[in-house]
């Protein structure tokens, strides 16, 4: 019965604390809703550049009238057969340019149709299926496979830096080829029609892809926890009061915290990277200096968030509650485990509100793709802006902490 008294007392105390009550009721909901909404979609609007040189004509032998030229425009039909919701088609005349765009991350794939694509494809189909009857100028004629052995290959250049996106891309392209071939009554396997090249030679696995995000997530969690709890403890123990009565300006105190925890985060990042690289052989081709820079700037911003949270929290327990509320959405929605491209479009803008999204993106670009500083200026710019804003707000909140300590 004493156990019951203890349990009853827990319920009584929980009931009196609206924050804990909210934590109990809403945290599981928050988790499952975020999971459902963020992980529900499949990739959409993946940019594919098509270089279509196919002249659309096919020269075939016939039993009745000898060799004739028919207009099939198979490459155009292929493009039309693509799923235009999943793929965003951009037309270009230059395959070199298209490949370069893929390489720099501006498009997921470049697809080139050679000049004789229609011709080579129909003849390849005929060679496999044998003669076939078609209607030509109102007359049914029998077309025969030509003797040649022309190559119908379309060349695909893929960005395989994201193992969640690549299968979707390949599946979409294969599906379109299957549809096209079914229409031509061919029996060719789609892979025979595609010559596939990729930026990273299929070296990037799902583990590689998620590693930078998990590193970002781990740093977010640890840094926010450490900072909030340290500041709350400084305040509740009274040392913050002493600190702020001394000739220390609030920005100096904030900057001191930021420096300490950003350096701790750098050390932790080095730990995480070394273990991932040597133990799990994570694909890592980037410059460690850029990784350090991203983490330094990002964690400075995190200190700010943590300082603000510590202003709200009266004690360590409340601090943990606030941490959860901030962390759950940012982890679920920042593309750590699931690509942003696959999130429902209405959720995506929210994902881009989270600084972790930019940190993940920048870490991924550098670690997996070996991108340089100039390639991640957008992400770094946003993170720097976030850090500056948080620095200003955290100085303000330090002042408030002084008044409310």
């Amino acid at each position, binding site marked *: 019965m004493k156990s019951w008294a203890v349990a009853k007392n827990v319920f009584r105390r929980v009931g009196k604390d609206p924050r804990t009550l909210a934590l109990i009721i809403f945290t599981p909901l928050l988790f499952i809703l975020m999971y459902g909404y963020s992980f529900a979609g499949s990739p959409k609007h993946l940019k594919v550049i098509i270089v279509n040189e196919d002249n659309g004509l096919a020269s075939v032998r016939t039993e009745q009238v000898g060799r004739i030229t028919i207009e099939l425009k198979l490459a155009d039909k292929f493009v039309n057969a693509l799923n235009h919701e999943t793929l965003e088609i951009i037309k270009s005349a230059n395959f070199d340019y298209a490949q370069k765009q893929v390489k720099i991350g501006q498009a997921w794939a470049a697809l080139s149709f050679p000049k004789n694509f229609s011709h080579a494809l129909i003849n390849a189909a005929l060679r496999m299926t044998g003669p076939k009857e078609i209607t030509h100028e109102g007359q049914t004629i029998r077309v025969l496979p030509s003797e040649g052995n022309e190559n119908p290959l379309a060349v695909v250049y893929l960005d395989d830096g994201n193992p969640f996106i690549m299968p979707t891309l390949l599946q979409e392209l294969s599906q379109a080829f299957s549809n096209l071939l079914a229409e031509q009554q061919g029996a060719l396997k789609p892979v025979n029609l595609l010559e596939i090249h990729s930026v990273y030679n299929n070296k990037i696995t799902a583990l590689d892809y998620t590693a930078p995000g998990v590193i970002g997530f781990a740093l977010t969690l640890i840094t926010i926890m450490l900072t909030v709890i340290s500041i709350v403890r400084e305040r509740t*123990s009274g*040392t913050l*009061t002493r600190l702020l*009565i001394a*000739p220390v300006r609030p920005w100096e105190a904030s900057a001191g915290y930021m420096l300490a925890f950003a350096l701790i985060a750098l050390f932790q990042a080095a730990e995480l990277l070394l273990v991932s690289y040597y133990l799990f052989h994570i694909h890592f081709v980037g410059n460690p200096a850029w990784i350090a820079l991203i983490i330094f700037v990002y964690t400075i911003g995190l200190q700010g968030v943590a300082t603000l949270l510590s202003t709200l929290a009266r004690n360590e327990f409340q601090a943990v509650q606030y941490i959860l509320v901030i962390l759950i959405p940012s982890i679920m929605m920042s593309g750590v485990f699931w690509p942003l491209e696959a999130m429902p479009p209405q959720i995506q803008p929210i994902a881009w509100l989270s600084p972790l999204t930019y940190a993940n993106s920048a870490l991924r670009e550098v670690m997996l793709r070996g991108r340089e500083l100039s390639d991640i200026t957008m992400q770094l710019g946003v993170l720097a802006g976030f850090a500056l804003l948080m620095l200003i707000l955290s100085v303000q909140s330090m002042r408030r902490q*002084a*008044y409310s300590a």
Partner: protein
Amino acid sequence: MELTLRAQGLKKRFKERQALAGLNLSLEQGKIYGLIGHNGAGKTTLIRILCGLLRPDEGEAHMLGWRVPSFRIQSQLGYMPQEIALYPDLTVMQNLEFFGDLYDLPKEQVRERASSLFEIVRLQEQRHQVVGTLSGGMQRRVSLCVSLLHKPRMIFLDEPTVGVDTKLRRAIWEHLEQLASADVTIFVTTHLMEEATRCHKIGLLYQGQLLTEGTPQELLTRTGAKTLEEAFTIIEDQGVSPR
């Protein structure tokens, strides 16, 4: 008579509770001012306002020639809060060194100053001991050392001798008197009448207002009481200042 501090019309309200209700206060340079009052009378609120940690709703205070809060006076201010306010995982010396850094004191100076303070509060043996392992009374002594480390000109002590034995309390008060004779102004809150009698001037804070002020002798004479405790009871019962 030179004033170190002058506060006028200080008011502060926390939701339903009026912590300070238009308080006026003057502190003379080189004097020890003792503030007496029940729990919740507004003593800590007053100290926090004077130290610049809390903004009053109304009124203003000037200290060492500057309006409070001012960054210019922070290096001349010493404050010993009611809580221990030390890093329990650091040693006594490490705590002092950290606060010495904040006051830009050279390492050597911190060491010398710490030695002389440790002598007064009898902590020489514990200087390298982790603060968390010390008794409550010892921790308060360390806290006092931190407050006095940078030789402040104005010192606020919030119940400085709670948990400190009588002999040591006397030693601490002797040191405070020495500081006062060197023109340091000291503002101290206390519950102990023994301490109150050692102040140059005492004030009784009641419901956010100074009910009375004067030297210990003046208060005894005014009320006709034999002890300060009795005097305060009489004044509180009257509810108005007999000055």
